[in-house]
């Protein structure tokens, strides 16, 4: 009864907060059952992308100025977040964002908020616990007291409770030990392969994401800088440069900056003088 993956198509998406443009003409495609990653540094607009897809921009006073977002051929732009979740988009938010005062079980049940088939929820809960057996003894624990890795598992499990056709993971690796992140990515791959769920992973940890994803996009300053298959990008010197700290062109261009000589700029007479 698992829903098969739906494809997500984003065209020309431009998002602004007040007067500041956060995304500019972004075009991203997640094929049905695909595994796509979007890479980018801090401030590249990754989180804004997630918010636009999940309809949460309004909470941050952001606005979509142009563009379209379609899920399985149907526009989800401008829909409210409950409708978007019902349409099949689930997310693991950045920083996990569990409900700290709720128990693990309650957290998981919240993930099923959009479902109307009450009877099916228990089955999903069981499925999730099979996926994350570590969580079984923790069910009645308060979520805020779990370790980072456990919290992230709850967050992924919570997202899966809505039986999504598209799963969005925002910064899954943030603050977690590589071992745990690795395990999480393997689980994502498994979900992707066995359930056919489309997966969109937003990451800073480029090497890991590129290892698991099929396609990748690189976001910089709100624009799509590069796109291609993960294998292609992994070999791309610029990606290595940006995310793997290699020694490419940009490196030399920083090193070549000359130090200013003799206090020219500081202490110059002011422009708005009364001469």
């Amino acid at each position, binding site marked *: 009864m698992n829903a098969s993956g739906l494809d997500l198509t984003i065209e020309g998406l431009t998002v602004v907060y007040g007067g500041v443009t956060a995304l500019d003409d972004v075009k991203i495609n997640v094929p049905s059952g695909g595994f796509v990653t979007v890479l980018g540094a801090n401030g590249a607009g990754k989180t804004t992308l997630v918010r636009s897809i999940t309809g949460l921009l309004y*909470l941050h006073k952001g606005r979509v100025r142009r563009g379209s977002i379609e899920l399985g051929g149907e526009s989800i732009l401008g829909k409210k977040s409950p409708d978007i*979740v019902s349409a099949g988009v689930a997310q693991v938010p950045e920083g996990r964002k569990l409900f700290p005062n709720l128990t693990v079980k*309650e957290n998981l*049940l*919240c993930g099923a*908020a959009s479902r109307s088939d009450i009877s099916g929820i228990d089955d999903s809960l069981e499925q999730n616990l099979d996926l994350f057996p570590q969580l079984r003894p923790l069910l009645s624990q308060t979520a805020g007291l779990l370790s980072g890795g456990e919290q992230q598992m709850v967050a992924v499990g919570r997202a899966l409770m809505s039986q999504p056709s598209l799963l969005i993971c925002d910064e899954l690796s943030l603050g977690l030990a590589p071992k745990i992140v690795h395990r999480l990515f393997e689980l994502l791959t498994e979900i992707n392969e066995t359930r056919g769920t489309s997966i969109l992973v937003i990451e800073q940890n480029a090497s890991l994401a590129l290892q698991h994803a099929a396609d990748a996009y690189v976001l910089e300053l709100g624009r799509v800088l590069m796109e291609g298959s993960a294998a292609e990008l992994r070999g791309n010197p610029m990606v290595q440069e940006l995310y793997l700290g290699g020694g490419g062109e940009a490196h030399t261009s920083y090193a070549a900056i000359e130090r200013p000589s003799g206090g020219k700029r500081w202490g110059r007479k002011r422009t708005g003088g009364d001469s």
Partner: protein
Amino acid sequence: MLLAFGNFTADPSVNLQLLIGGLALGAIYAVVALGFVLVYKSTDVLNLAHGEFLMLGAYFALTFLISENLNFFLGVFVLLLVMLVFGLLVHYGIMRRMVGQGFFAIVLITLGIATIIRALLLIFYGPTERGRLDLLPQGSFEIGGATVRHVDIIIFAVVAGCVLLFFLFFKYTRLGLHMRAVADDIEAAAAMGIDPDKVYAMTWAAAMVMAGIGGLLFGHVTGAIDRSIEAIGLRAFPAAVVGGLTSLGGSIVGGLVVGVIEQFANGHLGTKWREPVAFSVMFVVLLVRPTGLWGRKDLERV
């Protein structure tokens, strides 16, 4: 300045009477505090209009139960239904647009709502006072030389029942779970497909129903129903704070504690000491334990 201290008495029956009076008053505070806590816990709004909501409840009770002379249960049902609709109106008409605004702006808008309600009640009911409600049993009995009114017992039972009901609701129903989720983290809740809007609307409706019940009960113990009863909203603040603004059970205990303290201050020091003493207790609790006796502390990281 010489602050005259009243006559301390060792007479146990006087103190017992004060204790019982305090518990009765405290039960009323608990009803009001429960309304505050409901709204504050789920929507982060400090509702300064709750006293007015309660006044609205009392006046509506007057209309449905006395003027229209409905059957008691039917009247109460209509009263609560009207209050529920009113709560939805408050949310969808006003508070919905204020989500994400600054704290003080939201406090001020509840003050605006309070002003409107007061003005409208004055227009439609006039400034003259109405008698108190007398639909619940009016008798009283004595224990150890102190008088206990039946109404007080009923109020007690109703408040305890409401808290229990809310507790069960929050613990075991889906909507209750969603309401707690929204209170914890509105953005994450929205991301899970919970509609914060709906949850907020339900919260306001529930708080308004509580205010309806409170008005109905308070109408039985107040001297007369007039526009001065909105003051109960302000006087219940210490109760809500002492109990902890995020704890339903705390509001009952806080209400009782503050009610008893007020009555003792009233009896032993004089009426004028009532509010200062209550607010001083609140002040001390705030400084020592800002989240109240039962409120929970949220971890904050810069």
